[in-house]
């Protein structure tokens, strides 16, 4: 801390605040004014902490319940710079809160407790806390908490500033893993970029980082999908930021962005593997981050996918295919067998969804989609993939189902209906698919979507009901969960909303996982729901997607399920749409996927246009068993190929991107013929 500089308001607090006081640019007297949220159920401690933080010249908000804290954070995504939370709280475990915050808002979180046991502190580390304070907390310890904010911003900034430097990327990656960006190299880069950005000619890094308000990279679903696809392509172990960045080929994205996102993703994967039972948990957590936060959301989704991919050992190809399918072969031939598409769609969903959500992702379309697919399929076992096919079909049905569910969301229903119709033909999905779907979904976070879809699909024929029920539930739940994030995400209209934030796929996955937890059957619905929402919320934009994602994510936090319900609708459709749309994009083959994508995106505001298209596509896809087609295409669609070549990912992408404008673009891209988005009551 710079104790010597600046004015000294208060002996203890001013030192940190004062160093910059003198030359604070734009009245930025960092760290004074640092917005801290402190959560502790002990009123005595809370009061003392608040007073201490105020003395440090921070803008303090205190909260005695974790739920309330989360609500506050979600309502005001950018309202806080750092969170301090107690470990032991009656309503929610502090670590769980930590995870949520990290995923949804990507804020630095400091844990504190009277418990200084090594394992507890270690837990803080593994859950991503940036610091751990032992009670009683002394004011000196609080004076320095601004460093965590600066560090984080710095890293993000660096990511932003430096894109493509290999060495840096690797180094960054390494550093990000260590969460310690104090290497001189980084500093150098950081400094230079900072200087550029910072008006103040501060050599003090602190100043720079603190005053820098680098634009946060929002990891939309699409972006995340791209990310996931890239990582899958490279192999999770060999995925380095630089290469990922190259693969993703997203303009404006820096290696640092990728590096930090990768770090989160890795954490996510690690957790997934650690929690084999509940991948959804991970997903949930990932999903939760709202789009607003670049990393969290997308990372979640992407992560989920990735994780799934990583854990699911889904062949890259499948993933690719899925992605491709999802991405939407724009061919969008309704005839694409659904089943196959389902799977893909699910994945594709994510991709398209992402795309939808992220207008920016434009270029990424294909890639993204692909990525998404990658992300998604991974978790799916090969056989599951097969099941996916069924599921895909089911998905189509499911989507339809969703639509018919009406209960979920009136809007969705129409969409679904449309889908359902085409589906009638593609009853392939029916029960068997459903079974698959559900199966698929259950195990994999992702499959859930398909399951949902599949379930729905089948239901169409009558199974729907059955399927629906289970699937919906989860879905609903997810949606509620998603809603959580959605709230935040709502801002992202265009973005298909990254899975949770990550558009498309990511959300799917989380949801899937989520569902799994919920119940195997439900799982399906969970996934399904998203699509459901998509349809409904085509216009809704991101929040929907987001919801979907959230759903997955939140699902984990059963507590959120309620929330999800509400949001679910939104998110659901989005997801679904995405999947569909993607399917459509891919064209017939992928129709299923496209459809899902479409659905997915549909839900997602961005997807509305797409959704519609997607839905339509979906319908057509469903009908034709686009899924099948997809599978075939999958073969071709290697991760790399998946992208633009085979599938109209670009179309899908653009569709996604354009959703906002109109359905039309989506149409041709996603082959949303089948869907009449119009029908989808948005």
């Amino acid at each position, binding site marked *: 801390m710079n104790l010597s500089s600046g004015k000294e308001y208060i002996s203890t607090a001013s030192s940190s605040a004062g160093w910059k006081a003198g030359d604070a640019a734009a009245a930025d007297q960092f760290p004074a004014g640092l917005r801290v949220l402190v959560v502790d159920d002990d009123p*005595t401690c809370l009061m*003392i902490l608040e007073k201490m933080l105020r*003395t440090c010249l921070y803008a303090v908000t205190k909260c005695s319940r974790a739920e309330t804290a989360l609500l506050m954070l979600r309502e005001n995504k950018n309202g806080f710079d750092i969170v301090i939370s107690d470990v032991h709280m009656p309503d929610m475990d502090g670590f769980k809160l930590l995870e949520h915050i990290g995923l949804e808002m990507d804020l630095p979180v400091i844990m504190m*407790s*009277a418990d200084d046991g090594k394992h507890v502190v270690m837990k803080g580390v593994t859950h991503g806390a940036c610091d751990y304070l032992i*009670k*009683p907390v002394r004011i000196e310890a609080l004076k320095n908490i601004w460093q965590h904010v600066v560090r984080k911003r710095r890293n993000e900034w660096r990511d932003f500033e430096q894109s493509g430097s290999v060495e840096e990327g690797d180094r960054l990656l390494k550093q990000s893993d260590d969460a310690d960006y104090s290497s001189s190299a980084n500093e150098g880069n950081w400094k230079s970029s900072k200087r550029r950005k910072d008006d103040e000619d501060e050599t003090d890094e602190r100043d720079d980082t603190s005053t820098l308000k680098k634009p946060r990279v929002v990891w939309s679903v699409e972006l995340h999908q791209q990310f996931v696809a890239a990582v899958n392509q490279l192999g999770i172990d060999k995925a380095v930021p630089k290469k990922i960045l190259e693969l993703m080929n997203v303009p404006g994205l820096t290696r640092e962005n990728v590096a930090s996102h990768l770090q989160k993703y890795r954490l996510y994967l690690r957790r997934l593997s650690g929690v084999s039972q509940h991948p959804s948990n991970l997903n949930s957590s990932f999903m939760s981050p709202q789009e607003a936060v670049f990393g969290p959301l997308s990372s979640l989704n992407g992560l989920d996918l990735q994780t799934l991919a990583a854990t699911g050992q889904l062949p890259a190809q499948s993933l690719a295919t899925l992605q491709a399918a999802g991405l939407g072969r724009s061919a969008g031939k309704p005839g694409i067998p659904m089943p196959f598409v389902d799977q893909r769609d699910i994945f594709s969903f994510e991709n398209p969804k992402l795309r939808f959500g992220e207008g920016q992702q434009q270029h990424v379309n294909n890639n993204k989609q692909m990525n998404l697919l990658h992300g998604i399929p991974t978790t799916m076992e090969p056989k599951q993939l097969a099941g996916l096919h069924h599921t895909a079909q089911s998905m189509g049905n499911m989507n339809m189902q969703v639509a018919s569910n009406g209960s979920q969301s009136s809007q969705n229903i129409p969409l679904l209906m449309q889908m359902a119709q085409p589906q009638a033909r593609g009853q392939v999905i029916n029960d068997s698919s459903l079974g698959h779907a559900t199966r698929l979904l259950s195990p994999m976070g992702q499959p859930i979507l398909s399951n949902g879809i599949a379930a729905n699909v089948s239901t169409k024929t009558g199974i729907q009901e059955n399927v629906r029920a289970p699937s919906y539930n989860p879905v609903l739940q997810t949606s509620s969960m998603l809603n959580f994030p959605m709230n935040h995400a709502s801002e992202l209209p265009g973005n298909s909303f990254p899975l949770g934030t990550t558009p498309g796929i990511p959300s799917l996955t989380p949801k899937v996982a989520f569902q799994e937890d919920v119940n195997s059957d439900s799982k399906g619905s969970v996934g399904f729901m998203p699509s459901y929402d998509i349809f409904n919320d085509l216009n809704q934009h991101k929040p929907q997607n987001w919801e979907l994602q959230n759903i997955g994510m939140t699902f984990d936090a059963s507590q959120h399920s309620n929330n999800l319900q509400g949001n679910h609708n939104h998110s659901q459709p989005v997801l679904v749409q995405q999947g569909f749309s993607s399917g459509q994009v891919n064209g017939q083959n992928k129709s299923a996927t496209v459809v899902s994508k479409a659905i997915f995106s549909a839900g997602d505001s961005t997807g509305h246009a797409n959704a519609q298209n997607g839905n339509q596509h979906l319908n057509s896809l469903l009908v034709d068993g686009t899924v099948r087609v997809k599978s075939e295409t999958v073969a071709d669609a290697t991760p790399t190929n998946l992208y633009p070549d085979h599938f109209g990912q670009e179309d899908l992408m653009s569709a996604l991107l354009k959703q906002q404008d109109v359905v039309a673009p989506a149409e041709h891209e996603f082959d949303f013929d089948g869907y009449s988005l119009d029908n989808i009551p948005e």
Partner: protein
Amino acid sequence: MEVGQMQRRLVDYTKTLFMEGFLDAQFLQLQQLQDESNPDFVVEVVSLFFDDSEKLLNDLSMALDQPNVDFKKVDAHVHQLKGSSSSIGAQRVKNACIAFRNFCEEQNIDATLRCLQQVKHEYYLVKNKLETLLRLEQQIVAAGGSIPTIEMGF
């Protein structure tokens, strides 16, 4: 008694509390947090501590009174009390809580009951001391004096 005298009394009394282990450096931190903008900070926090602790002690008594004692719950309460007492600087209460938690782990009913008594005893002691101290401060302020800063060699 004139202000200077009262202030000296306060200082001596406070030092005694520190030396006897009733209070620790954390209490000094609290005192340092008090300023013109928040002249009653210490009083407020201490009152909060009293209310919260009494509630916790009641909960503890009830929990230990059950036929089937839920030690996890007991431990959670003690943990909370430990946290708040350490934040206030009530050292002896905190230490009693630490011992209490150890026995909770062992799920020793008798020992934990004894610990509860010990914690209660320490709590009432420190409560008494703090009330006296705060009263002294009040008197000084009422007489127009300022509360002297305790310089302790912690």
